[in-house]
């Protein structure tokens, strides 16, 4: 069947078997290998992409079912060798990745959480851990990932255009702290 998807801002037209999985289209059809396959039962989360803004496991969705939607993969998050997003930067600072196989899926899943915290209280540690339950990591024990998300959320809020944003440096100065 002839299908179309918008992938990372680019329209793609192709013909696909009805039983083709979205992850197969992305990896094998479009060569976007940043999205990984770690299991065959929808358990590991290495294949998470964003479908019309929401994170989904691309191994659990038929390409046909995603037809007409906008897909964002890890390749759509940064340019090759380019600047990291706030979340990626925070994960880098906390060394939230070791072998890296789970990482693209984590970045895609956690990106949604971080993006949605600029206008609300930052997520608590248990909330972040809950959010992460769909993604398995065997290397890090998740701790550095959780710290990375905390860091990213604080940074995102600090940069968000809220009133007390300008008051913070004064507070720091008043308490005698120096950078």
């Amino acid at each position, binding site marked *: 069947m002839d299908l179309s998807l918008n992938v990372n801002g680019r329209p793609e037209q192709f013909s696909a078997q009805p039983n083709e999985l979205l992850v197969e289209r992305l990896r094998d059809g479009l060569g976007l290998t940043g999205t990984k396959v770690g*299991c065959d039962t929808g358990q590991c989360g290495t294949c998470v992409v964003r479908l019309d803004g929401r994170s989904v496991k691309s191994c659990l969705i038929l390409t046909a079912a995603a037809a007409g939607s906008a897909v964002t993969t890890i390749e759509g998050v940064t340019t090759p060798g380019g600047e*990291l997003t706030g979340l990626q930067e925070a994960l880098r600072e906390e060394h939230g990745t070791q072998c*890296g196989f789970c990482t693209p899926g984590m970045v895609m899943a956690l990106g949604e959480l971080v993006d949605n915290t600029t206008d609300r209280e930052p997520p608590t540690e248990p909330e972040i851990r809950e959010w992460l339950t769909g993604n398995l990591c065997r290397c890090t024990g998740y701790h550095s990932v959780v710290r990375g998300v905390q860091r990213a959320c604080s940074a995102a809020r600090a940069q968000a255009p809220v009133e007390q944003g300008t008051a913070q440096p004064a507070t720091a100065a008043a308490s005698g702290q120096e950078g």
Partner: protein
Amino acid sequence: MTAVTGETPLQAPIQGNGLLGQPLDSREDPQLLRGEATYVGDIDLPGTAHMAILGSPVAHAKILSIDAKAAEQLPGVLKVATAADFTDVMPLPCIWIPGGVESHFPPHPYGLPGSRPVLSGDTVRHVGDAIAVVVAETPRQAAAALAAISVEYEPLPVVTRADEALAEGAPQLHEAVPGNLNAYWTCGDKDRTDAAIAEAEVTVELDLVNQRTINSPIEPRGAVGDYNAATGEYTLYASTQGPHNHRFLLSALVLGIPFNKLRVVAPTVGGSFGTKGYLYPDMALVLLLSKALGRPVKWVDTRTGLMNSTVQGRDHRQHVTLAGTRDGRITAVRCTSYANLGAYPSTIGPGVATALMGRSISGMYDIDAAFCEVYVAFTNTVPLGAQRGSGRAEAAFLMERLVDRYASEIGMDPAAVRRRNLVPKEKFPYDNGLGWTYDSGDYQLNFDRAIELSGYADMPARKTEARTRGKRLGVGIASYVAICGVGPSTRMSKEGMLGGTWESANIRVHPTGEVTVTVGSASTGQSHGTVFAQVAADELGIDPATVQVYEGDTLKAPYGQGTYGSRSYSMAAPAIALTARKLKAKLVKAGAVFLGVPEDKVVYADGKVFEAGNEENTKTFAELAMAMWYGWGLPPEIEPALDETTHFDPPDFNYPFGTHVAVVEIDELTGETEVVAYTAVDDAGNIGNPKIVLGQIEGSILHGLGQALMEHAEYDPDGQLVSRDLGHYALPRAIDAPFFTLDKTTTPTPHNPLGAKGAGEIATVPPAAAVVNAVVDALSDLGVQHIDMPVTPEKVWRRLRGEAQ
């Protein structure tokens, strides 16, 4: 400023510029975070065909016939192959024959009876045993064609437990191995131990099951074979942690092709934890089929495939005994273990089950008499191999369970019993009577730190408070010593390891002053590129940004034995440091020429040479690099260029150690165990990059907690793996642990120039014991003396209701 002149001895202390010990950011992380790293599944060579493997659906059977005609007719299918196609290919070697086999002076026989062929022909011995392969144009076509191969089986009786496999009348796996006994192995002094136990004031005994586990790296294994007909050269891209070793074993021992015609490349590897250091049939098959078809052949495993074919771990059934005095002095420990080797001896599986476990059983304690015997048996299960913390974790589990059992028997505090029996600082090097000599340690300091940090003294109050919330709080301690730093090669030969275990490094200084370090290890997520650059830059006194690290490609790197057993930083990094010292020594000689002063007046420090007492007369590292590249004016005894290699074979192993304290809360109603606090104080000697090590410690602890609480590779009586995918095999998720409280002590080893001990997996060793000790503590008033792992809510719930184990 530290300075060096002339030659430096092997064991000279660190002489760096202070870079070591700094938490530099991992330079690998940005590519990983952008999804730009290439794993084996991402390799896409032009013209690639795809391979799928038919695994046996039954655990034990004779193969009566295989009919592949229908499969061959399917669209896209290029070839179907069975054992009959590979009769000239040798079995996959097993290179660890326990019990010391120096009689196998090289060239050695390449395997044990029972070694596995690349495809099984007349008999299958475990579910997933490879019997046929299909190569097709697409992965889907290859997978679809597997279903069209019809195989006729004649079922044979099945055995999945090691102790049952050794019983009279048990099903037999290999004709050449009557009775299924692969090895009987002992260490320690049996008579002395038996006597100490017979005479003891107090003895305690436990029957333990150290259940089978699956490491489950998140990336399943994969391999791409590429044969070049024009040159006769083979290239294997594989998710391997030991490319050089795989090259040696595959070329010379399996395929029978010249060593110099095989190149093995490890791309980015998505975790391993021991499992990707083994030789698997697929590695040989993609090469053979690439040659047969004239195009690259690629295979990437599924998760279910991994569960049924990648080596599994632990799996001991043990009877253990500890003897001591009424006042808490341990006098003897004894272990009889039945180790489940699986259907075939994997590359080093027999050694994991024996020496790596048995020689460590006395842990951190100064015990007069110790003895361990291991029966290693074939069964109809996936071959046994290393799992993160392999052998050491099983040893720590049995000893630390015994200590708690003993403490409860004599009515002493478990911390006090441990404290009393720790090997005292002044006894190092300490011969543990089981074959290991611990290099260095301050166990008291480490132990006290962990106890204090965990708030151990407050536990009674916390227990009372927890009761008010319907929870039973328990606290468990586990201490450990973990053998790391494998070589020394000669010692490993005595252990029965057929092969050297040294490590090497090359440093090449380019004319522009930049540096390339190549090493024989292969990272599976340990940021080697960052840490090894740090080591070279530290020794040479240069900016780490100018140092590039390469590894994992046998064409580019010097020989090495790979990354396993937490050995990279205490084996490859010393090789780098020693190589840098060779370069410095050469630069001191050359500096005499360039500075126009006698050699004993030349100082190398902070990335330059200068005249002692006259720092104006100096040449920077970059100037020296260029001058050595030109080679002008050098006397005949100094070769031009700067390019040195070191093969490092340490005088002995190193022995990191530590103490962990787990606090659990058990829900009275549901039996659920929650780890509410976890304290770990580990000692890995001098640490190169604490940021990298922190990540490894955290990951390791959660891995260990996984074994305690949820992981179990469970076989049914027919030999079917019940936990065959991630829906049935539970891995810890982010909600399964709180943040850990971590600290370290630092006791350098004398066995390498960095004073570094293994670190990567050591923190996987004690958590299972700490958690089970904590659970038993929480249930002790119910008369519970032991509970088998994994400690599931159901098991605990039954114990809460007074049911026996």
